[in-house]
């Protein structure tokens, strides 16, 4: 009696497991299928494009060379990299310096100012588009990369908030000890706190990369001439220029996704970590 009950329990467990895997694989197809389809299309011959086949030989790698010459790929890659790199540098340096001020220094105006930082976090990004456009028009920055890079060097509320939390977790005794040894505020930040917060800085770098690499709305608003386009904008204009050529379009899409996928794989732990940081838990 006891044995048969045990066996039944085991059978239920196994069948539940089988069902779980079934659903998991089905869902995996939903999430990965489109990417496989993209890749498979990118290697197809333009005439056999409309056959529903996942793998058809021979592979037409020339679609890639074709796609990369259709849009001024290297030039747009250069623009994209300028934006991405400058944003990462700006965010890491300035946001962390400002966060250091909020976390470790005392001032009567600190509290009201931090509330202001939090308040700017609440402003929906879409509502800043037209106002910022007006500003950059005044400054004569339209159709340059300046609107996409310069603001990074003034800190970003969210990153300041994130780093402040981390700086506060580091014992204050460290600062005091350093100060007794004659270190100034800047040196405490640079030599003591920055190295201790490397994982958060890496997380911010990864997200800054991802956001700027994938940003479409900003470039769409601020850039006008093709030689200033970023890759996203180049890709978006790709389909408008010619009759939709799906094979090269999918080749270009694949190329644009590769760096993001690569960063995701390499920096996976930071993606997971970011969720625990964002204040959802503790």
């Amino acid at each position, binding site marked *: 009696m006891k044995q048969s009950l045990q066996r039944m329990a085991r059978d239920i467990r196994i069948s539940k*497991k089988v069902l*779980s895997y079934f659903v*998991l694989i089905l*869902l*995996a197809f*939903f*999430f*990965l299928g*489109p*990417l496989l*389809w993209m890749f498979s299309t990118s290697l197809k011959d333009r005439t056999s494009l*409309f056959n529903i086949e996942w793998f058809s030989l021979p592979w037409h790698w020339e679609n890639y060379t074709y796609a990369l010459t259709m849009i001024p790929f290297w030039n747009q890659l250069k623009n994209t990299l300028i934006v991405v790199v400058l944003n990462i540098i700006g965010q890491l340096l*300035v946001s962390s*310096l400002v966060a*250091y*001020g909020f976390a470790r*220094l*005392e*001032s*009567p*105006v600190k509290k009201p*100012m931090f509330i*202001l930082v939090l308040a*700017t976090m*609440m*402003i*929906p990004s*879409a*509502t*800043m*588009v*037209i*106002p*910022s456009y*007006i*500003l950059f*028009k005044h400054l004569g920055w339209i159709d340059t990369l300046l609107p996409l890079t310069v*603001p990074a060097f*003034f800190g970003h509320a969210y990153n*300041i908030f994130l780093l402040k939390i981390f700086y506060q977790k580091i014992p204050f005794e460290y600062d005091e000890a350093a100060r*007794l040894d004659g270190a100034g505020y800047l040196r405490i930040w640079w030599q003591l706190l920055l190295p201790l917060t490397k994982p958060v800085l890496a997380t911010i770098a990864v997200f800054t990369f991802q956001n700027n690499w*994938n940003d*479409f*709305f900003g470039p769409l*608003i601020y850039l006008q001439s093709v030689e200033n386009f970023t890759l996203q904008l180049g*890709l*978006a204009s790709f*389909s408008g220029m010619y009759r939709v050529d799906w094979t090269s*379009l*999918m080749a270009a*899409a*694949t190329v644009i996704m590769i760096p*993001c*996928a690569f960063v*995701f794989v390499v920096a*996976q732990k930071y*993606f*997971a970590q970011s969720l625990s940081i964002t204040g*959802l*838990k503790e």
Partner: protein
Amino acid sequence: MKMGLEKIGLELATSTHKGLSQKQRESMFFLIIVSPWILGFLLFTLFPIVSSLLASFTSWDIITPPEFIGVGNYIQMIKDSQVWQSLMNTLYYTAIGVPATIIFGLFIAILVSQRIKGIYMFRSFYYLPCVLSGVATAFVWKWLLHPMFGPVNYYLFLLGVDGPGWLADPLWSKRSIVLYRMWFIGGTMMIFLAGLNAIPREYYEAAEIDGASKKQCFWRITLPLLTPSIFFCLITGIIASLQIFGEVYIMMGSSADEYTRPFLHYLWMQAFTFQRMGYASALTWVLFIIIFVVTLIQLIMQKRWVYYEVDK
């Protein structure tokens, strides 16, 4: 230690010498350190906000000087049927998309919270779309949903279903965009996963001893303890949905019409196709107020349903 104390003494001496106390110096240094942010706030946030508020009361093509027209833009907006249409489309994306994302996101999170072999791999697969570019993936989905040659309709055909025209069909175009957005559910999944992992196992053990069924455990333990996560997804999901733009812009191209065009797309058109900066500024302020009010209502309502553990 003695050396250190001497140094403090020295520091105090020099600071009083300059007429500034240690506190004042620290406060001054604080202002210097955060000055980039203050400058950035004044230049990139406050100035644009104020100037766009002023611009919203003008008729302005950005080339010739603005002309003050009072609340003219706001009155015109009420009469502009396209404003209402685009607003309704945005509300559709929000009202259908956000609950769907939360329900399926929770389902998937529970599925991948099981401790079984290979589960980390599945989590990565599901999250992968979230790190990929919006432009490229929108094209991929446009191609997947191609009414004639797309694989989706091909497989539907094999199943004996006559697939819809998806993006080309006025009835299905909005649903297609919601479906595309569901592909990015991985972020929601991760948030729920973090929430699920934070629920103490003892609660379930205690419930099991008391003879509670799995169903009861879900409704009485899991769901109430997940309400903070649900609330977070709801707030961020709604804010993001009200700002839908890129996916429709890419997937619909120039054929974005009254059936699909979201509010932000209409706003963008007014600003950059018709050069009506004053009107676009007014629309921006309306969008801001809508998002603000919706968020405020949620913050007030949360007291009724979001459960926070007291001892924390």
